[in-house]
């Protein structure tokens, strides 16, 4: 038990240390630069708040962490429903979709994997179109049902996989248990976002998906993958049960999936003609802007881990 706490504590201390170093660098840049750096400063400040919330919920209990993830899903879903076209007749359907959030996270809390895995893709998938047809309004039915289900999958189903990692037990080769895996996933996903952005700013030349996200470059993508890969190899022995081969595989899976999640939400925003999904996190935009990568990394990393180790 002592050992478990220690590995996680060291990992958390490392994250705080990294954030402190990054803040000093940002401060130095903003002092020296003639350009307006207020957004970067604001973004860094928001990182402190997010890391603080995450650390506290992480240290208090698994249950609190699950509640925090449920809140994140709720806020993301609310952002999604607020920015997409919806039908007035579907108000009740949206209400049912919101109710799926506490139910899905209850399956996590209850460690009921079978239900967790099918509740949204099977039961909500079948129920929402039925609830929608009760409005007796068929105009726009397909669009409504399609968009509601996608939002639920993206904001609730995908993200709940991060929370389910918490429930995974400690094993002989992984004393940090589920919390260690969650920390590994969240840290690398978020770090990869920053690394891809930073490499892109420093070296970015060749656009990678100009039709969707004109600021993304091959240099940013590859630089981010390489940095995250190295970091995965370094941190895996501390908080995961992975051997070197699996650590390397996770170190590629997370940055690549994170990139795909990022540009997927970018495509959605471009279709809707909005720059950010919201304004909840100063300097970052909405909550969906922050967890876009996680919508892809969480389920993929979860099943990778579950297949090889649980």
């Amino acid at each position, binding site marked *: 038990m002592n050992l478990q706490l220690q590995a996680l504590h060291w990992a958390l201390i490392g994250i705080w240390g990294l954030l402190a170093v990054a803040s000093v660098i940002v401060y130095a840049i903003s002092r020296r630069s003639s350009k307006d750096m207020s957004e970067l400063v604001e973004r860094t400040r928001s990182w402190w708040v997010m890391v603080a919330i995450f650390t506290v919920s992480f240290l208090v209990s698994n249950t609190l962490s699950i509640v925090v993830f449920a809140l994140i899903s709720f806020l993301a879903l609310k952002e999604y429903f*607020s920015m997409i*076209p*919806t*039908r*007035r007749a579907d108000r009740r359907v949206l209400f049912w979709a*919101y109710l799926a959030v506490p139910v899905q996270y209850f399956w996590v809390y209850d460690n009921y994997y079978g239900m967790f895995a099918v509740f949204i893709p099977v039961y909500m998938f079948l129920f929402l179109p039925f609830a929608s047809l009760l409005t007796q309004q068929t105009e726009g039915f397909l669009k409504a049902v399609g968009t509601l289900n996608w939002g639920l999958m993206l904001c609730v189903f995908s993200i709940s996989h991060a929370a389910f990692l918490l429930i995974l037990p400690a094993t002989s080769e992984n004393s940090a248990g589920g919390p260690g895996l969650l920390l590994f996933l969240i840290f690398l996903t978020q770090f990869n976002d920053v690394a891809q952005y930073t490499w892109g700013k420093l070296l970015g030349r060749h656009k990678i998906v100009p039709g969707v996200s004109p600021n993304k470059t091959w240099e940013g993508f590859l630089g981010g993958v390489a940095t995250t890969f190295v970091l995965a190899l370094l941190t895996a022995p501390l908080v995961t049960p992975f051997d070197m081969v699996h650590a390397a595989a996770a170190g590629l899976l997370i940055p690549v999936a994170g990139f795909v999640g990022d540009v997927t939400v970018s495509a959605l925003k471009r279709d809707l*003609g909005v720059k950010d999904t*919201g*304004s*909840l996190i100063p300097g970052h935009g909405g909550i969906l802007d922050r967890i876009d990568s996680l919508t892809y990394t969480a389920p993929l990393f979860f099943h990778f881990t579950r297949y090889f180790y649980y």
Partner: protein
Amino acid sequence: MLFHAQGRHLMLQKAFYIVIRVAVLFLLGLNVRRKELLPVQGPAIIVANHNSHLDTMVLMALMPLSRLKDIKPVAAADYFFSSPAKAWLSEHVLGIIPVERQRKDGKERSKDPLQGCYDALGDGKVLILFPEGSRGEPEQMTNLKKGVSYLAERFPQAPVVPVFTHGLGKALPRGSFLLVPFFCDIFIGEPITWEGNRIQFMNTLQDRFAALSGEKTFAPWE
């Protein structure tokens, strides 16, 4: 007794709006632009578009708790004072000033319907006015009633601050009791000052609302 009736009502009002504030922040979530333009000292008039019962709640929730007693929403007497219980709640908790709307039976109104508003502005209160007169179809603005221009004329020193809200009618439209969470936008405009002409004043106000509602492209909702 330390707390006389007045004090009790104020405490009740504060407690009520603390609950509302938490609910508004959690269930809705507000994106407020230029909050600093919202007047907290009277006499002043806040003019907002009207989509939902949530409109008043949200505007009140944006005010500092200590100022609540001086913020007065203006609302239809026939709706908010239709029963003794409703009237008590409207007067003491919501702090509503009743305005008599056009009588359906065509009879003359008993007195100047705006008298309550004049008195409140004279006392240095902040009024919240919904010059569309009715919530109407959610998220659609209708023509503004000109009562507000009479207030501005009588109190030319009181700033008139336009507030455009979007999303509250989606969350709780007229005729519904089911609150569905949506992020809501609250755009506060520069104050308008009285320049001596009622028609010109109303046109300026209408233009301000048009400009505020054009600040963002809102998601379609039919």
